[in-house]
């Protein structure tokens, strides 16, 4: 699946997108955040405070318990500041 990052999540990770292949037991958005956090310092910094991280699964807002098994694209970003 594809992971995409925006705003300071993108800056801290140092990538705007990448292909990822989490193991089968990583089943939810929250579990994916934990799995990504272990990939390096940038990821750990980006996800240090998971409570402020927002996610979208296939371009629809998704909560921490949303399943990711059917996802093609998962996005992580800070709270939105548009408008």
């Amino acid at each position, binding site marked *: 699946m594809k992971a995409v990052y925006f705003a300071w999540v993108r800056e801290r990770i140092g990538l705007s997108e990448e292909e990822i292949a989490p193991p089968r037991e990583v089943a939810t958005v929250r579990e994916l955040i934990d799995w990504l956090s272990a990939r390096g310092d940038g990821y750990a910094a980006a996800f240090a405070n998971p409570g402020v991280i927002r996610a*979208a699964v296939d*371009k629809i807002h998704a909560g921490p318990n949303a399943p990711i098994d059917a996802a093609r694209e998962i*996005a992580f970003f800070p709270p*939105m*500041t*548009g*408008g």
Partner: protein
Amino acid sequence: MSAPQPAPTVRVQAEDFDAAREEALLLEGRRDVGALVAFTGLCRDEDGALAALELEHYPGMAEAEIARVAAEALARWPLLGLTIVHRFGTIKPGERIVLVLAAARSRRDAFAAAEFLMDYLKTRAPFWKKERRADAAPGEWVAAKTEDDAAAERWR
């Protein structure tokens, strides 16, 4: 007999928009609109501290999420027309960021829908603002406001 729901116009673009042209398109040939509310959000210079805003967005999701918010407004209020334009990229103080047009028979519905749309766009549309400072110091990402969440909560 209630009229069919109008198709909202939703655009996400780097270019500036022309509110007068959007209004003319929305009202064209209509004689049933009694109230048109236009909201324009502009970039403030924060007393000279700001050189520009860099607006990042999530292409594809931005349009889709605005369309979902628009559909929710159309389901809640008897609107006759709805236009939402949101810009991304570099926006300087005094320049326009977002336009919401809501047309209805009565002013109460047009005002409520426009305000609802802005409250929801602020907290749900995938856009992020980074400040470019006039003194060239490193700019910060604009923090989301708790009051914006509270504003969106009002409509639940």
